[in-house]
């Protein structure tokens, strides 16, 4: 049976992990490759690395890092952050990334999704969407939630799918960082209108929240992404998977 995926996400700046990380006994490990290997050994199903460097040197360091990660780990990983052209994506895929996520770049230029899909295949195109609720509507934001676009979450997700996105990664900016749980209702709706996998991100504070967003009577998401609860050791992946299995949520042990 196809399992639900657990995906730790690491923010990278100038080739190093950004946040102070207290992972297992490793305190504040800076090297993302070691962290990636440790997560993989713990049973992470996939990894996401987001480049938040603002400089060319930072981007170069990130590309070098992608090469080192690809050589070392034997599970799939996605990279993203600042991708605005298909050539940007090509560099990272050539370095060994399995998938590339596009966010603001696709909002600005929706044709980027179809261009990437036809050049590399839909399987490596993840469209990341950040959105905030304004009144009754979920408005898509760009630049880390700092700017509103003219797009609405559900229609944009559908458009992305039709343009060739392989997966949708939705982050609720209203839930992100709160540790109060995911935007389950929205994931449920996304999952019902889309025929491609939906990855939930933003709001995980404990294992219970992950169970809720993945369960059939909750968010129905295909995968759950989280950062700090894994990095700070609040939730250990083996414990999480045991708990999910007890709830009859299919997971890879």
């Amino acid at each position, binding site marked *: 049976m196809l399992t639900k995926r657990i995906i730790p996400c690491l923010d990278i700046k100038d080739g190093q992990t950004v946040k102070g990380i207290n992972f297992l006994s490793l305190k504040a490990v800076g090297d993302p490759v070691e962290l990636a290997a440790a997560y993989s050994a713990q049973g992470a199903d996939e990894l996401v690395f987001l480049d938040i460097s603002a400089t060319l040197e930072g981007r170069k360091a990130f590309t070098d890092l992608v090469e080192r990660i690809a050589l070392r780990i034997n599970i799939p990983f996605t990279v993203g952050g600042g991708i605005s052209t298909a050539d940007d994506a090509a560099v990272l895929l050539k370095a060994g990334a399995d998938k590339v996520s596009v966010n603001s770049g696709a909002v600005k230029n929706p044709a980027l999704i179809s261009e990437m899909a036809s050049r590399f*295949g839909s*399987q490596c195109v993840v469209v990341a969407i950040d959105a905030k609720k304004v009144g009754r509507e979920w408005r898509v934001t760009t630049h880390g939630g700092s700017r509103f676009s003219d797009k609405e979450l559900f229609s944009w997700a559908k458009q992305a799918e039709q343009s060739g996105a392989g997966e949708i990664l939705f982050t609720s900016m209203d839930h992100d960082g709160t540790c109060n749980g995911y935007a389950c209702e929205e994931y449920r709706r996304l999952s019902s209108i889309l025929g491609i996998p939906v990855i939930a991100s933003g709001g995980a504070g404990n294992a219970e929240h992950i169970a809720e967003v993945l369960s059939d009577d909750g968010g129905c998401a295909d995968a759950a992404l989280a950062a700090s609860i894994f990095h700070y050791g609040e939730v250990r992946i083996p414990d999480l998977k045991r708990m999910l299995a007890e709830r009859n949520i299919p997971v890879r042990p």
Partner: protein
Amino acid sequence: MTAIIDYDTGNIRSVENALKRLGAEYVLSSDKSVLDSCERLILPGVGEAAWAMSKLRDRGLDGFVRSCTKPVFGICLGMQLLCSWSEEGDTECLGIFPNRVRNFRGTIPEDRGLKIPQVGWNDIRFLEPELFAGVPEGSYMYFVHSYFAEINEYTASVTEYGIPFSSSLRKGNFMGCQFHPEKSGDDGEKILSNFLKMKL
């Protein structure tokens, strides 16, 4: 020495990285004399079936692979190309395995809410003993695909996604898997290392 057949398809890098992790000597080539000098061949593949078959034909590699007597391992689309026909682009394939390659869409029940492509980790069962030596029954492998190989007498492992399908195939020196062993953790690497021990 192992050869990765280079026919301008994707996913070669990840196969190369896995061989490096396993310490295997390999070459990447589309040159028949180079391929001929190797002990075994890997046919990788990510992309579209009709396009990939035309790339193989352009290089004159279709007949070469078909008549090969050394161990040949197709991965993902590479395995599908070893089958008789693919629904993707109505493509005549190499015909090593007698089965067809079908689209999940239109084949699996629509009311189950199964997404297409299948993306993620699924289990493999009824494992063929040599290629899967040391790999536990029910191990999880990483899949990304919309098309699947039908069950037939050469099915070497079974996976279920709305319907049971051949997640791997084996007929003498020819074998292949639908999932990505190079992205399937330690169990996936074990499959690759089993293949790397095979010789004519």
